[in-house]
């Protein structure tokens, strides 16, 4: 089950197979998950049930060991409502104990069977998972369509030294979730799957980082205290980190924080003036107070979630990781980014902070928290301009390497340029009625391999759509635009937070953009090999 270089996991999976790659789990045979899986999945429920039972029995335990401290014998008030007394008095104790024991046994057997039935295998072409006892599920995902692999470690699972491996396919709820695997197995299996998916013919296994040595407890503690990103895995110059101060500062200077302050001010005003003037405005509190709590928890969540954030380049794609207690890191193979938007709101401008979002073909299942699905589209929550360029270099390596300094200058102007006299083709003067502040900025530029759309004077936005990922392109014109001899262009990519659409262009410019983009998309798609990103090596 493990190669010679990985430490043996306690209670690891099946029989030792011929090691291929880092873990030997990707050998085309069926394997099982970590035996603690049922406990971890139902873990929270078990803790709650145990807590309720203990809370109910607490006084009884005290009574057993120290008679007379809680209940004075013969005092009816003390034990009248206790269900345990009722059971003893009515002679149902044995039946009750038997029932509890039976339920526990059935649960254990069911968990054990479901663990036995939950198997997965990784072959050269597909990853497959079989699960379910009564309702069997068999899910198969093609390796060359993998959109990303994430490893989630909720706090509870981290304590047990396990991790959840999510293999993300294209589309809604297209994940193959392997929950839970041992920590080092999860990391190794991801490396193996990515190597198989890359189409690499070299077949060489990436060196795995040796896990911390020592006793079980020592290893757990070391894992909990280890940095989220293992420095041995990546080239240090490719790592972008984020300081906690900047994260807090950016949250304070965000739109939600402004709303929060306004809402708080309104609440205080109403409370202070409550008795005299604003008495009839008390009903507003019913909507304001939940809003304050909602916004506040959103901001705190954002800070906590992205603490210890890092983004780094690995040979098999970009690795984005974050989290303090529950950690999450995700590897996006090359060619899985469908569009990139670099955005800045007005409050961030003095500090020159930017955020980077991406559109990806995968969308989390509906059972996932919507917030988590949304967060995975943010690759840089906040960063300086230098950070933005390093992230862009990781996300779209071809763009910056082939273009060299020119593209970098173009991107600079795309981010902060406000005049229309640069390389961007912008809205003509007559379009200013539709783009009051941004008409000088609103424009596009074509570079080899990508389309750049620059928008917004107040909320600045530079959208980059790589041509090999474009699905189709449309040119649109309504009556108002026609009256002004303008038109809009919409580049279609997979759905996500970014809509690459640019309006109010001169008709001739828009038609040229449409023709160029349509041609570039065809040419780029014909040359694109990124679904097997290493197949051209050697």
């Amino acid at each position, binding site marked *: 089950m493990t190669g010679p270089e990985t430490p043996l996991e306690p209670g690891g999976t099946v029989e030792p197979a011929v090691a291929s790659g880092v873990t030997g789990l990707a050998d085309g045979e069926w394997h099982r998950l970590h035996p603690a899986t049922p406990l971890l999945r139902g873990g929270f429920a078990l803790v709650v049930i145990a807590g309720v039972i203990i809370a109910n029995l607490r006084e009884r335990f005290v009574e057993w060991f120290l008679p007379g401290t809680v209940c004075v014998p013969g005092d009816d008030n003390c034990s009248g409502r206790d269900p345990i007394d009722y059971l003893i008095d009515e002679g149902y104790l044995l039946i009750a104990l038997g029932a509890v024991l039976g339920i526990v046994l059935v649960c254990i057997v069911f968990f054990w069977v479901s663990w036995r039935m939950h198997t997965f295998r990784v072959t050269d072409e597909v990853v497959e998972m079989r699960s379910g006892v009564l309702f069997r599920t068999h899910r198969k995902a093609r390796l*060359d*369509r993998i*959109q990303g692999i994430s490893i989630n470690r909720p706090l509870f699972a981290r304590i047990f030294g396990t991790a959840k491996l999510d293999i993300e396919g*294209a589309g809604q709820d297209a994940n193959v979730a392997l929950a839970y695997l041992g920590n080092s197995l999860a990391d190794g299996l991801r490396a193996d799957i990515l190597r198989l998916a890359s189409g690499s013919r070299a077949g060489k296994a990436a060196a795995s980082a040796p896990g911390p040595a020592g006793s079980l407890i020592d290893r757990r503690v070391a894992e909990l205290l280890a940095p989220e990103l293992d420095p041995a895995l990546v080239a240090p110059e490719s790592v972008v980190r984020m300081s906690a101060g900047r994260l807090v500062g950016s949250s304070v200077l965000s739109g939600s924080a402004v709303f929060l302050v306004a809402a708080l001010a309104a609440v205080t005003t109403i409370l202070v003036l409550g008795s005299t003037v604003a008495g009839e405005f008390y009903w507003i509190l019913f909507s304001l107070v939940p809003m304050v709590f909602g916004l506040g928890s959103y901001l705190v969540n954002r800070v906590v979630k992205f603490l210890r954030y890092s983004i780094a380049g690995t040979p098999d794609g970009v690795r984005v990781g974050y989290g303090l207690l529950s950690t999450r890191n995700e590897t996006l193979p090359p*060619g899985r980014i*469908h569009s990139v938007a670099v955005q800045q709101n007005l409050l961030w401008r003095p500090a020159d902070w930017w955020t980077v979002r991406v559109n990806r*073909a995968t969308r989390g299942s509906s059972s996932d928290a919507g917030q988590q699905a949304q967060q995975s589209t943010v690759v840089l929550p906040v960063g300086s301009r230098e950070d933005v360029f390093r992230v862009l270099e990781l996300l779209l390596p071809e763009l910056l390497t082939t273009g060299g300094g020119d593209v970098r200058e173009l991107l600079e102007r795309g981010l902060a340029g406000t005049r229309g006299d640069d390389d961007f083709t912008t809205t003509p003067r007559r379009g200013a009625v539709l783009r009051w502040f941004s008409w000088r900025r609103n424009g596009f530029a074509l570079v080899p391999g990508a389309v750049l759309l620059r928008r917004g004077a107040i909320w600045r936005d530079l959208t980059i759509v790589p041509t*090999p*990922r*474009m*699905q*189709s*392109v*449309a*040119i*649109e*014109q*309504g*009556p108002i635009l*026609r*009256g002004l*001899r303008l*038109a809009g262009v*919409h580049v*279609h*990519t*997979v*759905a996500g937070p970014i*809509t690459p659409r640019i309006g109010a262009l001169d*008709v001739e410019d*828009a*038609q040229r953009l*449409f*023709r160029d983009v*349509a041609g570039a*998309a*065809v040419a780029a*798609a*014909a040359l*694109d090999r*990124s*679904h097997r990103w290493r197949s051209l090596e050697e």
Partner: protein
Amino acid sequence: MSQRQDTAGSAQQASAAIDPVPGEWQRVSGKYIVVDLLGTFVSAVIFVVGSGVAWFITREPWFLVLPGVALTIHVLIAAFTPRRIRAIGYRLRDDDLVLRKGIMFLRVVAVPYGRMQLVDINRGPLARAFGLSELKLVTAAAASHITIPGLAEADAEALRDRLVELAESRRAGL
């Protein structure tokens, strides 16, 4: 169609309307105008009757405003239907399919063949009575939104097979 070609020829100097790929377009069947008009008629009946219920119960004259508005909208839609449907055009180019639609709100879409995920043929009850089908292309982007209505059944099937064949020969990743 001849009128279309005229504008295409003189488009370069002053036309404010978009025409990014001038040239001949494949048109949809003229019978589709009838189908669409019948559909508009059915919808008009439903909306006018539905919004007229209030007037029928109360006999208050200003409740007639709603059915009046519904009727006007449908008459306007019907008046533009023939032009709207004659404006639908598609063209199979070497590497992509181009579809144009609309007179007030013009839209031209280009889809590379390699990007097609599937091709649907739908037949509504009215269209089936006239032997027509609707072809729908799906790409990985929901925004693409490409439907070609009013194709003769045999044409639709031939076009679908041709598109699938073209997509197969230019297969690309996502």
